[in-house]
């Protein structure tokens, strides 16, 4: 028997496999890697009239002017604040809710409530934004209708920068808390039941069992998810923000993605759009790699 087949014969042997995966490979070449050439526009003063090859090369000028723009820090702040608020307010909630669901004694009660709280996750951001308008807009919002019936003046929640961050976090909490419990609930099922029995014999109270058995039991899951979440600090929910965006809240709503979109696509400033996108992509990559490495060091498989 031949120890090592020739490359050609191995390729021939797998001809059907290539056939099967050909569309996927072509897809990745065309839609995932070909656009990366476009990243070079970040180093050009791209003009659609001159085209890619004739546009002037400007080195890092686009980046320099982007960093010097005072608005850069506004976007950086918005990204960090929204990310931090989501982490601080939203991250603990699915943990609390899964502990609560785990403590229920009636299976039916539990599954009915799970079914309900998962539901908003399946609703699009467009509908979520619409529901937010029904709740908060000054014309048709429920809250302002209540204010009206109490004789109080209306508040324009959606155009007041004061409320923007909290509205965005509120939407995330409403939409994703229930869904977020899935992983924690499945982590809880892996905890050894003998521990609970032993604790019961020792006379541990319900709260003590939660704090000393359940919570430590899911702690590894919590830590890993937290680290992976930190890896995504630059992804604060592009569609969500875009939908809640209006010119009055620009100073608190603008993030790198929305800016890249306005400048690059709406305004046709391709080079600036690509520069912003590339900056965000590279920083995001660094965060992701760091968090993934940390997660792996703590014994998780990481995400890649």
């Amino acid at each position, binding site marked *: 028997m031949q120890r090592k087949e020739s490359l050609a014969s191995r390729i021939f042997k797998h001809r059907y496999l290539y056939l099967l995966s050909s569309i996927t490979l072509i897809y990745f070449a065309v839609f995932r*890697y070909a656009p990366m050439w476009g990243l070079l526009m970040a180093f050009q003063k791209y003009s659609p009239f001159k085209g890619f090859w004739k546009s002037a090369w400007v080195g890092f000028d686009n980046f320099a002017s982007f960093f010097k723009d005072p608005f850069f820090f506004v976007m950086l702040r918005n990204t960090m604040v929204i990310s931090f608020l989501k982490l601080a307010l939203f991250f603990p909630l699915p943990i609390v809710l899964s502990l609560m669901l785990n403590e229920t004694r009636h299976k039916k009660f539990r599954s009915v409530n799970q079914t309900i709280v998962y539901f908003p996750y399946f609703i699009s951001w467009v509908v979520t934004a619409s529901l937010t308008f029904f709740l908060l807009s000054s014309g048709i919002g429920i809250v302002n209708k209540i204010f009206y019936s109490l004789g109080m003046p209306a508040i324009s929640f959606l155009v007041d920068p004061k409320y923007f961050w909290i509205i965005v976090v509120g939407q995330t909490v409403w939409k994703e808390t229930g869904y977020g419990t899935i992983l924690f609930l499945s982590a809880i099922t892996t905890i050894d039941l003998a521990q609970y029995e032993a604790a019961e014999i020792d006379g541990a109270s319900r709260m003590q069992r939660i704090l000393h058995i359940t919570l430590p039991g899911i702690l590894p899951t919590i830590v890993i998810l937290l680290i992976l979440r930190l890896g995504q600090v630059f992804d604060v929910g592009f569609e969500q923000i875009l939908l809640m965006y209006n010119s009055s809240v620009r100073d608190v709503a603008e993030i790198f993605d929305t800016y890249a979109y306005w400048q690059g696509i709406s305004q046709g400033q391709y080079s600036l759009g690509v520069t912003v996108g590339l900056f965000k992509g590279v920083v995001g990559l660094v965060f992701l790699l760091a968090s993934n490495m940390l997660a792996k060091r703590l014994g998780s498989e990481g995400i890649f």
Partner: protein
Amino acid sequence: MFAPKAKYVRQRMTLGDYLNYTGIIIFSIICLLPFLYVLSVSFTSPKEYMPMKLILWPEHFSLESYSFIINRNSFMRSMANSVFVTLVGTVCNLAVTFTGAYGISKKTMPGHKFIVPLVTFTLVFNAGIVPNFLLVRSMGMMNSFWALILPGLTNAWSLLIVRSFIEGISSELEEAAKMDGCTELGVFFKIILPLSKAAIATFTVLFMVNHWNAYFNAMIYMTSTDNWTLPLMIKSMIVDSSALGGAVSSTDEKTVPLETIKMAAIVLSIAPIVITYPFLQKYFEKGVTLGAVKG
């Protein structure tokens, strides 16, 4: 109140239990209330509807808002567009993802060592909004439904998860089939696909929900209103017209107040999700835990 006395209810309900149940019920109500409100307003007779009155149950039940919206061509067309993109898009997603995942599951295939890292890299980095947009535009796909299907044919995350699912299928079965003269094509269709039903169901659900809810790509590529998908229609009906007040006059909508119609539009747009929800929930949960194998 919640369930008949059963053997797993060992202890009596304590104060802690009641507090816990109350907390859960409150959160469930928060999740449901917006839908209940929208549903109630949508079924309220537009003529009787009083904008400043809060209702949580339809008063003067009527289907007028629905008949109005169903007779509006632009709305129904956007719904048809969304159905088309969702069905065709999901079938394409499944075909490309499962064939591709089978391909990258075979370590003996020459090129495997390059392909997998290249796929994985797109998980963490992509060219970004502008280059992707320019590519799609240069391919002449503006206003084509393919612009909503082709750029997202598959993704690294799905490929890697389906791959690890396929790797879990016994290789002995494959070997046996090959002994019987099956080619890799035959193995894929006769062994891998029939044994991947659970993964296929999970990814059908994932892809369908994504297509049905997709907003951004439709917004940048569908510049002609004839090609709008449902999320674009909903957005223009509700978000664009109510940010500052909500009173947008349109000759179309003189006869009926806008609000009940907006609510009816929302109900119609989430109806497919509600109808398929038992199926969605079951397989989505599986999808999350599948993903967690590598999370």
